[in-house]
């Protein structure tokens, strides 16, 4: 028995030894101190910069930014010293949860999301703006109301304002047609979907394949999020709606109908059906995956599509690199039939994220002053154009980017971050082809720059259509919706409405492809009716419609459209 006891003691000893190892380790290197990195404001000496900590929830920021000349100048001008931390995309959600749970916030949160407001992490900015934000007030004007939180009517964050007319530098979702198709069919005027159909018919009659592979006359990838990009949104644009995603909003009563149940959508599917019957639709389009689709586009096989032009920029670069510049794409506005006005590029004032000040901020005044500077003309020019004489010159009273800067910029994607020029485009500032009060562009990323970047092939095609850049073919003056974009209105998670929307989404992935590939009109109609019936009765899409209608009413009230 004696021996057994000894063993037990030894076992306990071994355990305690391990515990000792644990403790020793944690004592040995315990130099880390949890908590906010903010050192607080230094109120006594105005000359000493105020230290502010900032988290930005974006994966875009590259760490070279904080060493860049523009950043240093910004710090100097605003007399702050910002400790900028960026959160990469993967795991950002967890970081948010941890931040909210622990209540450890930096002074400024950038690219906040609703949860921070709900958690009470942010302070209302109303009074601060009133007192310390002359530039904010001037830039935003009445649009400031559009930032108000539906729950308590307060402003919690500042995004980049979109209240001024902006020229379209690059159209987003729109009709894309290969240059070669245009050239071989004599640069047709493309207005309606039928024009596109005829053009494709004409081209494919003589041209069957490229590099031994058959052409895909109409590009489609309807797997996962591609459904919205290549089926749902094209239908919206063809019928003259703005990007309301799944919602069809009656512009008088503001009642919402699920867009996929409307006649407009049915007619668009009819067009796809016509393409199918004419042998112009990729039969695998409804199951094509993103990577697969990109390789189809990048190898020059897709002749035309309605798609977001921004998503194929790399494919176009690949085509040009492969010596096939004639396979790049022209951008046209397109509608289903005469009489419909294209509103695909009409943008809208909807703000869902921005820069906010947290309850942990030691010196909210310094923070709001910093944000105010960003919206001043000087601040706006500094962050977007850079430093005069270094990044741009003033020629004939207009800002012109230095040629060597343009060259570096065009060849090195990291350049913007190393210099800090035009990099923080989501900050509360004007950017893009918007004109500032001095009558000059807010950023070098404007229509002049885009024209300079076109290759000869593109310029040749543009000339045929009598414009300098694609944006000129589009109209941005179309009526804006008074509620912004419907897709920016969030639906409460876990609600009946969200469930209905998820079920409907599943359903359309299964059924829409089948409807499109119907052999005759009778089958098409039968399948369509079945689809709408299932949306109504199985998915209970009415729940979603009701919730959306209410949410739009709330927003209209908030924005001062209705009383």
């Amino acid at each position: 028995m004696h021996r057994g006891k000894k063993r037990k003691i030894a076992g306990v000893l071994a355990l305690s030894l391990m515990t000792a190892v644990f403790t020793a380790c944690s004592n040995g290197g315990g130099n880390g101190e949890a908590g906010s990195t903010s050192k607080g404001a230094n109120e006594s000496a105005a000359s000493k910069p105020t230290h502010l900590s900032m988290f930005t929830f974006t994966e875009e920021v590259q760490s070279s930014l904080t060493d860049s000349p523009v950043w240093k100048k910004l710090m100097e001008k605003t007399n702050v010293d910002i400790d900028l931390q960026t959160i990469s995309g993967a795991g950002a959600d967890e970081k948010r949860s941890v931040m909210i749970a622990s209540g450890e916030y930096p002074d400024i949160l950038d690219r906040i999301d609703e949860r921070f407001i709900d958690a009470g992490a942010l302070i209302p900015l109303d009074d601060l703006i009133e007192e310390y934000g002359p530039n904010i007030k001037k830039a935003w004007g009445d649009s400031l109301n559009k930032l108000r939180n539906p729950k308590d009517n307060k402003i919690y964050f500042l995004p980049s304002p979109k209240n001024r007319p902006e020229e379209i530098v690059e159209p987003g979702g729109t009709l894309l047609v290969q240059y070669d198709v245009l050239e071989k069919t004599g640069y047709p005027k493309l207005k309606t979907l039928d024009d596109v159909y005829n053009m494709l018919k004409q081209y494919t009659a003589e041209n069957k394949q490229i590099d031994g592979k058959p052409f895909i006359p109409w590009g489609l990838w309807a797997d996962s999020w591609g459904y919205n990009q290549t089926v749902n949104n094209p239908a919206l644009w063809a019928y003259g709606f703005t990007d309301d995603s799944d919602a069809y909003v009656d512009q008088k009563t503001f009642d919402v109908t699920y867009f996929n149940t409307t006649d407009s959508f049915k007619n668009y599917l009819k067009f796809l059906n016509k393409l199918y019957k004419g042998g112009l639709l990729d039969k695998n389009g409804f199951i094509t995956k993103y990577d697969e689709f990109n390789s189809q586009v990048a190898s020059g096989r897709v002749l035309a599509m309605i798609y977001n032009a921004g998503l194929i920029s790399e494919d176009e670069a690949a085509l040009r690199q492969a010596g096939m510049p004639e396979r790049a794409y022209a951008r046209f506005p397109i509608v289903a039939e005469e009489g419909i006005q294209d509103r695909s590029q009409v943008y809208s004032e909807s703000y869902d994220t921005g820069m906010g000040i947290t309850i942990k901020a030691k010196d909210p005044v310094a923070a709001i002053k910093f944000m105010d500077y960003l919206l001043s003309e000087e601040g706006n020019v500094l962050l977007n154009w850079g430093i005069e004489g270094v990044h741009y010159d003033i020629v004939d009273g207009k800002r012109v980017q230095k040629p060597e800067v343009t060259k570096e910029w065009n060849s090195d994607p990291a350049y913007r971050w190393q210099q800090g020029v035009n990099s923080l485009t989501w900050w509360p500032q004007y950017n893009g082809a918007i004109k500032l009060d001095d009558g000059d562009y807010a950023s070098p990323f404007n229509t002049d720059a885009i024209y300079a970047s076109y290759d000869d092939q593109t310029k040749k095609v543009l000339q045929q259509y009598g414009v300098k850049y694609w944006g000129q073919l589009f109209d941005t003056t179309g009526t804006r919706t008074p509620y912004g974009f419907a897709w920016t209105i969030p639906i409460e998670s876990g609600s009946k409405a969200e469930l209905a929307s998820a079920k409907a989404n599943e359903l359309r992935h299964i059924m829409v492809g089948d409807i499109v590939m119907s052999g005759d009109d009778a089958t098409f109609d039968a399948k369509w009716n079945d689809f709408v019936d299932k949306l109504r009765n199985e998915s209970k899409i009415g729940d979603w419609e009701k919730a959306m209608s209410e949410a739009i009413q709330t927003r209209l009230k908030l924005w001062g459209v209705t009383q």
Partner: protein
Amino acid sequence: MINRIRRNKGDRVFDGINALLLLIVGVVTLYPFWNILVLSFNNALDTLRGGVYLWPRSFTLDNFKMIFDLPQLATAFGNSFLRTIIGSLLSVGSTAMLAYVISRRDFLFQKLLQRLFVITMYVSGGLIPIYFVIKGLGLLDNFLVYLIPMLLQPFYLLIARSYMDGLPASLQESAQIDGANDFIIFAKIIFPLSMPIIATILLFVAVDQWNAWFDTFIYTANEKLTTLQYELVKILSQSTASVKNDADLRNKLAGGAGVVSTPQSIRMAITIVATIPIVVVYPFVQKYFVHGMTLGAVKG
């Protein structure tokens, strides 16, 4: 050849099929990795066009350049290296010691202790409670956060325990008769005999340590504590983000000269950078897997 048993036709057919099956399995396992290697050395825009399978069509080092251009690369690599070495050694040491204790049938709390550890395999506090524990221990922004939470993983503990259970009890008894105490038994007998399982766990933990990035992300804010995997995750999400960013469009429109890499190609290059070092370690540990089983035994 002399000792070879005569083989009939059936044996040969069996061998043939066996070899063929294994070959297929081998190719299926190896090919994806080979393709990743090929794509990582292929021009990013060319990769977009598809059809690159066995050999790079347009050779480039740009994808790797993107990664090796990182300013924090040396720090990140150093930290990953340190945490892998120190972390896996510490972890193996503690796992083995504890496994020995709970493999001893004469230890009073053997069953209880073992159950307590098993529970943690199935029930976890979740991210936020764990965060608070880490914070409470003062491990935020501390290198030790890479080592201490990973010291013990119950799964490895159980593997080690069952292995030690299988060692003949008479070995320990004879050592005890010779006057060895528990520490000597552990150090001189159990540990060397458990080499195969120790090596296995060492490899597992080393891979875990090498691949870990989430702890860097959640628990540290100090750039000096960054790890290679975390930096790689960042590049990956940056490259994905830049596709969506309008301002980057200009590079792309300018004839593609500015596009040095695409998310897809960066993903491939990252996979290679992240995998190769740990793959290199494998052959050194492998011999223990094979040898270990025959080590030591009680003679009749």
